[in-house]
């Protein structure tokens, strides 16, 4: 009873520390000259923008208070025109525009905004890479524990080279060199680079999982006349899987985060989408916080699944 009460006190302290840090950040942000415009973020998540509206003649623009309608006054003559119900405006109050300039966009179908589109690409790349990385990691991991020296050499070389070089450098090599030679699109160059990188780490996870199965299991299986392949498939791997799954899930969280590096190849993943929105809006603070939270939602959901898995596997021991 008292023990659980004191636990709550400690949790309250944690909360207080986080709140203190948060308010410090808030106060610091107040002291710099920055106008927070959180209200402009949602349109980059879900947007309703439709067709562009162009200026019918040369003239000055006057915006309404809410920013959804504007009035144009002609430079020559007394023409005026008013546009209502705009989804977004591309001009500022008092701007001089010429005929054909883009004034803004009309509302259209509700669709994914830039950030959500980027998030979907990040998910696609991560999911595809994870599948290939698991295949590659299983093969290389088996190679590490194989009797054949060539299999050992090749898989050790693969793991050492990939783990010893930065992912960013690997992506550049994959995109500029191999991508050019094999005419790969940026998307597939990214998927392949991430698969090869993550595969090396999964190979080590697989190797550790296999080696953690007691030697007596192999001896028993082979004493019964099972071949090496049958022993691996029916006796060793089923037991190794239980040890492999939790770190494998952890590695797939890393994969999602690592996928942000493909943004250097003009691939509009979540990170690149963030950069695009920043450069068109000049709202780096809001955008990067939003992007971080979106990554956190992805990885948080995965690590929740991982914890459930770990509990289930622990319960079976």
């Amino acid at each position: 009873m008292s023990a659980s009460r004191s636990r709550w006190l400690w949790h309250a302290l944690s909360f207080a520390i986080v709140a203190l840090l948060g308010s410090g950040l808030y106060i610091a942000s107040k002291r710099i000259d920055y106008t927070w415009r959180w209200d402009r973020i949602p349109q980059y998540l879900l947007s309703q923008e439709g067709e562009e509206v162009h200026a019918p003649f040369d003239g000055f623009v006057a915006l309404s208070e809410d920013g959804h309608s504007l009035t144009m006054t002609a430079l020559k003559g007394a023409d005026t025109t008013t546009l209502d119900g705009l989804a977004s405006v591309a001009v500022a109050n008092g701007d001089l525009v010429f005929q054909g300039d883009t004034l803004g966009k009309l509302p259209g179908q509700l669709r994914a905004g830039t950030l959500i589109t980027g998030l979907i690409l990040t998910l696609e790349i991560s999911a595809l890479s994870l599948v290939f990385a698991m295949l590659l990691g299983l093969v290389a991991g088996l190679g590490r524990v194989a009797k054949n020296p060539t299999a050992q050499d090749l898989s050790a070389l693969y793991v050492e080279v990939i783990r010893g070089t930065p992912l960013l450098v690997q992506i550049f090599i994959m995109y500029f060199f191999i991508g050019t030679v094999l005419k790969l699109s940026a998307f597939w160059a990214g998927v392949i680079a991430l698969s090869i990188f993550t595969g090396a780490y999964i190979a080590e996870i697989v190797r550790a999982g296999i080696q953690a199965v007691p030697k007596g299991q192999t001896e028993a299986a082979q004493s019964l006349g099972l071949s090496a392949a049958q022993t691996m498939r029916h006796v060793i791997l089923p037991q190794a899987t239980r040890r492999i799954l939790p770190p494998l899930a952890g590695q797939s969280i890393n994969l999602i985060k690592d996928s942000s590096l493909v943004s250097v190849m003009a691939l509009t993943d979540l990170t690149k989408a963030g950069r695009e929105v920043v450069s068109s809006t000049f709202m780096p603070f809001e955008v990067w916080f939003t992007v971080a939270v979106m990554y956190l939602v992805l990885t948080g959901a995965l690590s929740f699944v991982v914890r459930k898995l770990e509990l289930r596997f622990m319960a079976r021991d």
Partner: protein
Amino acid sequence: MNAPLIKVTDIEKRYPNGTLGLKRASLSVSSGEVVVIVGPSGSGKSTLLRTFNGLEAITGGEIVVDGHVLHQRSADLRSLRQRVGMVFQQFNLFPHLTALQNLSLAPMKVLGLNAAEAAERARALLAKVGLADKADVYPAQLSGGQMQRVAIARALAMQPAVMLFDEPTSALDPEMVGEVLEVMKQLASEGMTMCVVTHEMGFARAVADRVIFMDRGESLCEDEPEAFFSAPKTERLRLFLGQVLK
């Protein structure tokens, strides 16, 4: 008497670091015979047993098991191992499979039995070792003695010509030793050829046709159990028996 099922001649095992695990060990086991190997810890008796189905490679000498000649580098261990059942000190049951699946895995994958045939054979063997009701139980839910009986049944499921027992009762709590020895006695009485490494002198005296004494990697002497225990042939055996039988 029949031709020996296992014939081991002057085998030697030298480890990569140069130490000798076995030197000049020889023995033969005829069909239907029960041979017990005893000796002090580290004398190489388990190593010797494990050479019979190629779990330990040898660096000299010759082993002939059921017509298969094991050289220093044997190619066809698989067909040999199907004829030789092995029971381990640590049971080595497959923890992710039920007792029934432990028994039926090898008959299905190696002998090509279908699931129904393998299950039928497995149930009969489980009943034979007194565990008919444990078919669908995982090893973790069994006691040590029950696990070792399942392990014996698993080896029998391959219908081997000879059974090797590597200290089958050493990892058991004392109250479970009896049930395992009982199963082994029953096997012996059915005429199974057996080669047993054990510290159970009572079992050796009661069941063995011959007892072999090993020390420091050598098979020193062998005799019928009565003479082995009452009139030891060598000084080292006398010392050993003095220590274990007091």
